[in-house]
């Protein structure tokens, strides 16, 4: 077990996502420091993958920019280590990436390095419950959590996924890929109450959330709110000047849910 529970210990958690290396790792690093300052409870570090099939255009394009700028798995690990040792980042950090990024690095080697850098767990959107053990069995040896996702289409699968969940449960708010949505149509309340009846692990809602109003609504049904594309978009717009904008945005979201 990791220290992820720490993120949910003081009220509702706000969990920002960032595509590492877009526009460069120095900016990413600075943004993460600002996220903590603004009150984020945990941060998701996206290691870019060339073909992110669960992502919408915003994160897909950011991933390509990051790879073109030379971002690699090793450089993301080095950044995470610096955040812990030099930049005073103490909130839990989880890695979000795709199965092949972990597999090609060597699952054991990946987990070992992640643990050394102060990473708490992984979110792998293309690894469902059925394929989980290949990764989770190795992670446990390093006290890393495998974060499970639950979707609006999970239905009869919810109980089995939730009852073996570790760290936190990522509740996917909508069908489709990541990205900003003006409206979320799923019965979130029904979904999270089903999750809660099978598990005491905290649950956080993500996919499609961008405004403080949406965050406030969603936080009523869960322990935390995850925002990705809206932040990645801000960084795309402001480039190296993004950290101060990210600070303002994260603060507005944290204020909305507390």
């Amino acid at each position, binding site marked *: 077990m990791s220290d992820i529970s720490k993120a949910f210990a003081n009220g509702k958690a706000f969990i920002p996502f960032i595509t590492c290396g877009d526009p460069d790792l120095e900016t990413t690093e600075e943004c993460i420091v600002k996220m903590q300052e603004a009150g984020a409870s945990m941060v998701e570090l996206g290691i870019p993958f060339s073909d992110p099939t*669960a992502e919408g255009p915003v994160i897909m394009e950011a991933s390509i920019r990051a790879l073109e700028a030379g971002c690699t798995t090793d450089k993301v690990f080095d950044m995470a280590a610096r955040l812990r040792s030099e930049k005073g980042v103490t909130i839990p950090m989880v890695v979000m990436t795709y199965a092949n990024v972990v597999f090609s690095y060597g699952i054991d080697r990946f987990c070992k390095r992640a643990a050394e850098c102060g990473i708490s767990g992984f979110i792998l959107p293309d690894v469902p419950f059925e394929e989980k053990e290949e990764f989770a069995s190795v992670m446990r040896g390093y006290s890393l959590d495998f974060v499970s996702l639950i979707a609006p*289409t999970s239905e009869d*699968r919810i109980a089995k996924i939730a009852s073996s969940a570790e760290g936190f449960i990522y509740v996917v708010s909508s069908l489709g890929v990541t990205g900003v949505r003006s409206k979320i149509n799923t019965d979130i309340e029904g979904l999270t109450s089903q999750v809660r009846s099978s598990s005491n692990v905290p649950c956080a809602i993500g996919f499609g959330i961008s405004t403080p109003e949406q965050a406030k609504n969603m936080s009523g049904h869960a322990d935390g709110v995850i925002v990705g594309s809206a932040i990645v978009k801000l960084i795309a717009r402001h480039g190296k000047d993004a950290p101060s904008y990210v600070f303002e945005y994260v603060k507005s979201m944290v204020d909305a849910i507390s």
Partner: protein
Amino acid sequence: MEQSKGRFGIHGGQYIPETLMNAVIELEEAYNHYKNDPEFNAELTKLFNDYAGRPSNLYYAAKMTEDLGGCKIYLKREDLNHTGSHKINNVLGQALLAKKMGKTRLIAETGAGQHGVATATAAALMGMECKVFMGKVDTERQALNVYRMKLLGASVMPVTSGTATLKDAVSEAMREWTTRIDDTHYCLGSVMGPHPFPTIVRDFQAVISKESKRQVMEAEGKLPDYVLACCGGGSNAIGSFYHYIEDEGVHLIGCEAAGRGIDTFETAATINTGSVGIFHGMKSYFCQNEYGQIAPVYSISAGLDYPGIGPEHAMLHDMGRAEYVAVTDDEAVNAFEYLSKIEGIIPAIESAHAVAYAMKLAPTLPKDKVMVITISGRGDKDCAAIARYRGEDINE
């Protein structure tokens, strides 16, 4: 550790977002039910025979045999099927299955456009809506097929993300499927993707080797010694191999697209240049870098321009049961012209990769050996591109 479902050795599996899991489970259950249903099979056989024009001919290529001076060469003529390629076999099966499952809409990816045309055709026949994802680059090099799909009532979505070719079309079709699984079936065109697709597509394509085995026995009184097929994702290759896998004396050879050569970065020869990875729902071999980033691949053939290969091929390679060889653009174009001139058969540029390897192998084999080459599709669609390759600009 216990292996998950749909494994071929270490390969295969179901590496997909949770949103899609119940959709693939529903598909697997439906397939397991209908594959043994006599009524379903009778309907499919009727479609194969009356609509697609099966069984396809096994043609003895006498002039080619004589010219190459080695083994006897037969061509399995999938190019004679309705819509001009083997793709119709899989599509009729999946469309019928989707219809039985109550789906009203088909989506598909396409590279060369053959699978897109086949899917649009089946959708028209069965009164279903159809949307085809095709890399922008491919829509340009296969403009005629784009028009054919539209003519058949399908909408074509040019995909601009990534390399704007087949892999990006697959990613985009998967993304679309996650937004709409209630009424939509993803009609995957090759023996790839998450379980149960590699098995379903293989079973529908296995009709190729089921027929060829009987046809060769009738013509020669024995099994063939060599079976050759081109291999990108690998659907015509697995269909051509399947009923011979247990017959160990039959050499199975998949011909990959080497593009400008396997020692260059402009290649799509997955087994010859790739390594084991996880992508598009499956574990298999992929062209990728040391960090698992999928490599941009290249081949003159849009249908073979894919950075992965189906998991069953990956297993056949690991076992040493099938051999995978690399054929360059140049060799394939020569073979395209050769078969046209010597037998009066214009093969698809994809199929020409298998013909090219046969041109190297056949002369080295004794005259009493028998080789079957699958001509997976016809080459009309490629004429303009090959003319350009030879420096001639023609209007389609």
